[in-house]
Each structure stands twice: as C-alpha cells, then as structure tokens.
C-alpha cells in the first residue's frame, strides 16, 4: 500500500491513508498460548463417568 495523503492545505484537513511504512517492523516472535484452566470439563465428565460406573448405570 502506498502512502497517500490528500491535503486540503487551506483547511488543514488531511485525509490520510494508512501506509506500509507506518507499520511496525515485521519481526515475528513465538508466543505460546498459556494454559490457565485445568481440564475441568474433562475431569468432571471423567468423575461423572466413574461415579456412574460405580452405580452400574453406565
């Protein structure tokens, strides 16, 4: 994208278009998604299934 700017000089009213050189430098950095929740659903389902097998209903 080319930097362009239409300036109405008298009115000092610029309409700028985002330009590529406005962007921060491209320098990717790995950012692994963190784990914050224990597998609550899995464990509760596991607990339920264990409880159900104990009651011989599953």
């Amino acid at each position, binding site marked *: 994208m080319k930097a362009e700017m239409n300036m109405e000089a008298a009115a*000092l009213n610029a309409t700028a278009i985002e330009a590529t050189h406005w962007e921060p430098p491209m320098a990717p950095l790995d950012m692994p998604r963190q784990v914050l929740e224990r597998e609550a659903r899995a464990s509760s389902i596991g607990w339920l299934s264990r409880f159900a097998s104990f009651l011989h209903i599953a």
Partner: protein
Amino acid sequence: MGENGVRMSADPQRSDLKKQDVKRARIYRVLSLGFSAVAATTATVLLLEAAVADGNDVWDYARATLIFLTTAWLSWGAAQALLGLPGRGQKRVVPDIAMPQPRTVVLVPICNEDPVATFARIAAMDASVQAAGVNADFAVLSDTRDDDAAAQERNTFVRLLAETDGQGRIFYRRRQDSRGRKAGNIEDFIRNSGAAYEFAVILDADSLMEGATIRRMIAQMQADPKLGLLQTLPKIIGATSLFGRAMQFAASFFSPVFARGLGRMQGDTGPFWGHNAIIRTGAFAESCALPPLSGLPPFGGHILSHDYVEAALLARGGWTVHMDETIPGSFEEGPENVLSFAKRDRRWCQGNLQHMRLLTAPGLRTWSRFVFVQGIFAYIVSLLWGMFLLASIAATVMAPAPDYFPEPYQLFPVFPSDRTQQIIALGMGIVGLLVVPKLGILLQAIATRRAQGFGGGALAAGSVLVELLLSSLMAPVMLMYQSKAVLQVLSGRDGGWPANQRGEGSLTLGQGLRAGLWISFFGAIALLGVWQIAPALVLWLMPVSLPMLAAPLLITYSSRQLFGGLFKTPEEDERGTVVAAYRTIHARWVAQSGRPGPTSTPEAGDHAHVAA
C-alpha cells in the same frame, strides 16, 4: 531454567541477594497476615461480647463472621501502610544504560481515544526520549472501530510524523479486529514485531513518561537479567475537580507509602497494573499469551483484568516482577468525578471477579493466587459491609425483650449489662484502621520534609483532613456502586469494555440526580425502616445513611472545579517536564486544527471527549 521451572541467576552474589529478598518478603507477609488476624479476631471478640449480652442467635454469628472478614480487609490495608512507612534506608545506586543500547519500543494501545491529545503526548515523549539520549521507537496500536475516529487518528499521525520527523521510528497500525481487547492488542504486536525489540514500555493513551525515566527503566532491566517486568507508580496529573484533585493528592501523598509496603510484601512477585511499566519482550512472549476462558462473559471469554494475570504468568515462568515506587517521571490521568470512576470500577470489578476462575490455574505461585483473592475481596468487601449493616439491624430487631427477673421468686431485677464500651471500642478500632495509616504518613512526611512538596506541613495536614472527610462521605456512595457492580456480575451481566471517558468533567445537578438518586432511595428506605423497627439504631446508621441521602449532591458538587491551594502536589510544578511539553504541543495542535478545544483549558489537563 533451574529446578521447579525457576529461572536461576548466573551471578551467585545476586542469587544470594535474591534469596535474602525472598526471605524478607516472607517475613513481611507473615507479619501483615498476623496483624490482620489479631485485629480481626479482636473486633470479632468485642462484637460477640456485646452481641451475646441479650442471648445469642444466628444473626450474632453472621455479624461476627462479617466483622471478622471486613476488619481483616481493613487491617490488611493498614498493614501495607505501616510496612511502607520506613524509608528505603541506604541510597540505592541507580544503574545507567549499558551500551550498545538495547532496542526498545514504547507501545501506546488506543481504542476510541482523542487522537490529538494522544499523539501530542507521543510528540512530547519522543522529544524527551531523544533529549535523554535513548534510542526508542514508538508504536501506536489502534483498536478503534469507528471509521471516522480512525480517519482522525491517521490525520493526526501524519501531523505527528511531520513534526517529529518520526518516519521509521514512530509507527501506527490499526487491527482489523479487536480480539482480546488491550491484552490481545499488545499480543498482536509482540507476535508480529516482538523479535525486533528487547524491551517494550507499555503505556495507556493518557500516560506520560519522561525520557530519563525510560532510560532508567531500561538500565534497571539490563542490570537484572531475571527481571521480566518493572512497574512504576504513576502519579495522577491534570485534575481540576474536587474529586479528581483529592484522588490526585492521595495518589501522590499516600500511594508511595502503601506501594512501598506492598512491594516489601510482594518481593519478586510484584504487580502489573497494565501500563507505565517496561517488559522484557522475550519473557512476555514466552509467558503471557492469554487464552480466552471457557464459557460466556462475565466469567468466561476474554480476560478483562489481564495485567494481574500477566504478572502471575511471568512469575510462573520463573521471571521476577518488581514495582519500584521511587522511579520518578511517570504520569497518568484519573477520573474527574464519581460517575467516570464508577464506570471504570465496573470493568475492574468484573475483571477481578473473573479471577475466581483462575484461582486454581496450574503452576501459579501461592502469592499470585493470594493476589487474585485480594483483588476479588476488594470488591466483595463492599457487599460484606452492606450485609453486616443488614445483619446488625436484623439482630436488633430479633433480639428478645430484656428479662429483668430470670429466676422465679427473684427479689431484685437483673439489668442487662451495658455493652456500649465494647461497641465504642469496636467503632474506634475500625476508624483507627482507616485513619491511623494516613496520619502516620502525614507525620512521616512532615518529619522527612516530604510535606514541602505538598505546600508545607500545615497545608498537607489540611489536605489530609479534607481527604479523610471526603473519603468518609464518599464511602457509602462507593459501597453502593461497588455492591451494585458485584451483584450485576454475580447475576451474569456483562459490562463489556466501554470506551474510556477520560477527563469527563463537571456534572450538572441533573446528571448527579440521574447517577445518585437510586442511592438516595436506598438510604431513605434504610433510614425509615430502621426508624420504624429499631429507633435506637438510627443514630448509628447516620454516618452511612446521610451520605447516601445526599448522594446526588455529593456526586454533582465533587465534580466541580476546586479553587484554592488545597490538595497541592509536587507534580503540579510542571516546568521543564514532559507534561509541560505536552500541554504546549496539545494547545498548538488544537488551535491549528481549528476544531473546538477541549471542555476546559489545555493547561488544566486533557479534557477532550472521545472524538468519535
């Protein structure tokens, strides 16, 4: 990485110092917890002694439990202040930046902010950074959704580039979606550009920082390779209203002492307040990509109070997080009235209560979990105070009539023992926990001549007294707002992420009535109800019910401009600072743009409303 995933320092001497710091922090924690436990237990015993005089029932035990919890919370705050009263002792050697300079970027995430004010701040900071001999880039990270507002941002950015000759070191990018809100905005930058920078200073749109401050923060990060994040204590600037100036004074006069106490307790597991801090980009990248929580808001979805979680995750990753309240030249703006304070507080309330989901997050330090509990408690406690008042009324109403002749054939009546002394002792103890820390800070400021910056000992004492009075009057109003926020969140109402309304200024009486009439209504109901069922309690209820009745007036008139020298702070002398430079640039840009100026003079602070 060492054992247990803790990052080990290569320097044995530094490692020994760290161990000493950790040990000291543990001692401070035990002392503070012990102090809180003793104070809470004493309050509970006093209340029970008074309560069981007329026989005990369930309301007495409810009151005892509630007074234990609320007093423990008050004592915890008092402990922080008492712990922070002693100064730092020997003067620390502040390191200077090591060459070659590390690549550093100053990040300014924005969302529907006033672009003229925001970019004028960046222009001022850019000049200050260059004057301090620091090579730092700036990156404006926009999440603005409104196209007109985004166009204004671009236009103002063109002006910023032209004025600073900043092409190639001042950047602007606007995300196509605002996933993850502010935390997602920062994350997006780090994912795409993080490898270009060793350090990133994170600011808010209303933040200002001296170039020398940034230089010092970089140097402190260089000096301690284990340091993942360094948080400053920003001072509030630009307040003009009674409410705003009282907050500004409290932040400048009391907060450094509270923060020093907090810092002593936290040790290496310090706080992150989301802005006016520097991060080690690599540490942040490897530790702080936040996942959305399962389920729907308010408890699921994006993490609102992300900063607390990021600090906890850095600690989990073996990085240290420090707060250094001695770093000068770090500023922000604050709410100018109760209404804008309460709006911000609603978001913080939801964010902190959301942390209930994270108490059992795997691998967190015990202290980090405790910090989450503190954050949750900071909001729940309002509800607990309300419940205590209700339980006290219920206990009085339900109390059996005095039995003057409990034994058959008794010759003389037995009068119930007077427990007024215990109640007065309890009341004085609770007031003491609120007042003594502030008076202690005043005395310390006079003794160390710190009060000179606040207009001298007499003016500082006057400001402290008025602040105490104002905060006492406001406490029931805040209690109602916080209780409402907690109940809304607990009932599943998502407050979202409303646009910041910085500098929202003076309120009309109509706005005050709309904001506070519901509080007056509850105050009147409580007063009339108690008058009918337990008239003896009316006097005790007055300190709470009268401010509630006057809520609209308090909200309105505390938003009005404060004249006179009260609440003077050292930061008001802005000569030669980045704040003064910002005011000059902002005034010029507003004048040149030909658009209406801010709602008050630029010299008085940035009061422009959101441009969108």
